[in-house]
């Protein structure tokens, strides 16, 4: 394999990492409050707002049920508005973030709903405000599950990022399609797949380890 190709694979790996990290980061910042809200705003809950909960729920479901490749194309005007262009790695971050945010919100909602309601009651009995309950009880108690959810979201993002080549986004997926597939270079395809496998493995094992360390529910030996 030529040094030129190796440099290309390296560059594509960096592009993928940047897209996944930036989109994952922004989506977490947006998805965390959204997920907490979804988990606490049904009737009788901390921030009871059943109507807002229902509307957001529909919005989240709509985004999640749109196939990613269609979402990428459908929101091109929005992408252009945000990134100034609809082509390239920076532009690809926009649809990735839009797709990951509701996904992460649902994962966080699930994690927060798993927290024992008895703890919420105990915190209320101490005189905690709803915001204190979220910050001191719900999020810390849900943290191991949140970390596992974010791990899952990052792995999915790595997969999604392979599709943004369709709009001129770079990354490993794009490289695999253009060189491995269209130029009949199976060795490039093999390297791309191998790098993706290593990336996913890495993300998953770091996430697992972190979640295990945060989980104090298991007895420590």
């Amino acid at each position: 394999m030529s040094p030129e190709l190796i440099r290309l694979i390296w560059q594509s790996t960096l592009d993928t990492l940047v897209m996944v990290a930036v989109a994952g980061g922004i989506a977490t910042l947006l998805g965390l409050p959204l997920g907490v809200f979804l988990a606490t705003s049904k009737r009788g809950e901390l921030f009871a707002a059943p109507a807002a909960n229902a509307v957001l729920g529909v919005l989240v479901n709509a985004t999640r049920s749109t196939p990613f490749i269609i979402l990428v194309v459908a929101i091109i005007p929005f992408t252009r508005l945000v990134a100034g262009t609809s082509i390239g790695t920076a532009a690809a971050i926009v649809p990735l973030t839009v797709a990951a945010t509701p996904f992460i919100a649902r994962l966080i909602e699930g994690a927060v709903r798993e927290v024992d309601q008895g703890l919420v009651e105990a915190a209320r009995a101490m005189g905690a405000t709803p915001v204190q309950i979220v910050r001191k009880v719900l999020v810390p108690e849900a943290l191991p599950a949140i970390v596992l959810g974010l791990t899952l979201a990052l792995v999915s993002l790595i997969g999604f990022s392979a599709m943004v080549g369709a709009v001129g986004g770079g990354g490993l997926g794009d490289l695999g399609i253009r060189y491995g597939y269209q130029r009949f270079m199976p060795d490039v395809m093999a390297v791309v797949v191998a790098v993706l496998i290593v990336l996913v493995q890495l993300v998953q094992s770091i996430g697992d380890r972190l979640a295990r360390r945060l989980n104090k529910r298991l007895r420590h030996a």
Partner: protein
Amino acid sequence: MNAPVRPGALSAGALPIALAEPAIRFEKVGKTYAARSGQQAVSALAGIDLSVPTGSILGVIGRSGAGKSTLIRLVNGLERATDGRILIHGEDVTKLTESGWRSQRRRIGMIFQHFNLLSSRTVFDNVALPLEIAGTPRAEIAAKVERLLALVGLADKSERYPAELSGGQKQRVGIARALATDPKVLLCDEATSALDPETTRSILALLRQVNRELGITILLITHEIPVIKEICDRVAVIEGGRIVEEGETFAVFTAPQHPTTARFVETVTGVEVPEHLASRLRTEARPGDSLVLRITFIGENATAPVISRLSAIVGIDVNILAGRIDAIAGQPFGSLLVSVPSRAPESEAVLGALKSLGLKAEVIGHVS
């Protein structure tokens, strides 16, 4: 022997605070859950009149679904009364707003059946939580938490996580946490129902200590009569959302008025007629039969050598069939099943002697 003095029944001279406003007072309190689509409105509590004297321990006993958890949650506003008033140290809390309730709740501690400790926090940080919520300065929190952990006997477990503790230890953390904001009232929601009998006793002893040494009024709910017997000065029996009987524990246990109360106290005060005897019991005496009596001992009589005195007075043998001597709210209480000859002069002499000794005797029947 002197009967131990019950704090709930102390004279005003010994404890002037007993005359003061009750710590908690329910006045005609009701709780109705509004009708939802397709469902009728549900009345959980109705016409609750109940006072918890300051410095006492009052236990509310009832089966599940009787309304006791709703009742206890009305006191700290986790549930809102729909009728009547609730006064805490004389202050009407029924009209409080949510933020009014929040500051009120800092003056009321609560412990739970399943402890409700945060698994992500150490023992120390769990106890610190109510102080963090109240905005207490960090240095003050540390000193306070150390003191509370020493009080509940867990000073050495400060850096452990709840998952590393036994049930009894978790409840001790719960108690320390409930006391963190120096409450005047402690609510116990089935606090020992998830614990084994021995651990239950140690937790009850700790609650007793908290009540006596810190002067904290305790309102507890339970379905376990031994809990009431062990530490409650007063007891209220709840059924179908209503209080059916209320009074000093000893008085209620020894002379229950309501059938539900009678069923509850039977298990700790009653002596069952043994199976082999029950099948042979007759209501009519035949020649040569023995008379079966249940003798109830209250207060100092419970520890007096009654049977030997009885034999000495009437000069006949008293046969003990079954019995139990126990303490209720710190006062001795006993119940004995005995048999004596059924013949008229002897049996009448025995009944007369029991009366002169101040004992309650109940004729169960005759056996051959």
